């Protein structure tokens, strides 16, 4: 933007992106998986985090 002074770009090292990927995977497992990855235990995760899932607005049931 026009008021932004130039600041040096930084390269995020691989481990940074790996941590982000891990966090994304956790979000998916916690909030969205319905058995694709977790298989039959997905039902338990689903029931346990039922309210959080619904509140996150992810598809359910």
């Amino acid at each position: 933007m026009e008021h932004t002074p130039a600041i040096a770009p930084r390269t995020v090292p691989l481990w940074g992106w790996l941590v982000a990927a891990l966090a994304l995977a956790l979000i998916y497992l916690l909030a969205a998986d319905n058995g694709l990855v977790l298989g039959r235990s997905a039902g338990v995760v689903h029931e346990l985090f039922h309210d959080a899932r619904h509140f996150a607005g992810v598809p359910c049931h």
Partner: protein
Amino acid sequence: MSLGRCLRLGAAAGAGGGVALALTLAVLGGAAISEAVELEEAAGGGGGPFSRGVQQVAGVVGAVALGVAVGVVFAVVFAAARHRLPGRDDWRRSLWLAAAAFVAGHLVPALKYPPNPPGVGDPATVGRRTALYVLLIAFSVVATVGAARLNNWLAARGTAPAPRHLLAVGAWVVLVAVALAGFPPPPDAVEAPATLVWNFRLTVVGGWLALWAVTGAVFGWLSLSPADRTGRGDAGAAEGAGDTSSRSD
């Protein structure tokens, strides 16, 4: 700031955002969810291995855990995109990124696949619904990053602000409109009472708004040096003249 510190700030900010999500859940959304669960059980459905009490506690824990994970992703993206984000300090950059994340990550996908209370939805289609939802989030995020890159590319070529903002926002609107029209409609009929569904959807949007507002604000606040926060130090006197926080890189 080192990447490790950036990630810690992100996790802390995300935990705050998760608490905001859980608070919204408890204060505004709890009634709608409980009402929906009662309807579901009255209809002979529901009734899992956990009591409502356990689910409510786990709901809070889950919301905070979700917030921490979201905050970590936010921090990595912030570190990578910091030099491209609008705003003259990390406070403004953080708020901009959080606002973009709210719109691209929640608001746009929710317009096509709005959240439903418990008891709505056919278990047979949940795989397809989940896949469509995740795909639309991915598309929306890519469209938003693309529009931001277009804006910055035009800026680097010397295009004036007004036309490049119009071009970038216009491109974003076209991409989002095409996706909203082109993605298949949600497959399930919604038979729960319309008022319950509407209240539930509004609270979910409110919950994400609270999560992103708190995450962006806490991360931005923690990214500033103490002098920048109050504007009393040398750094504060130089506000507008330059980016004072980049010295710590």
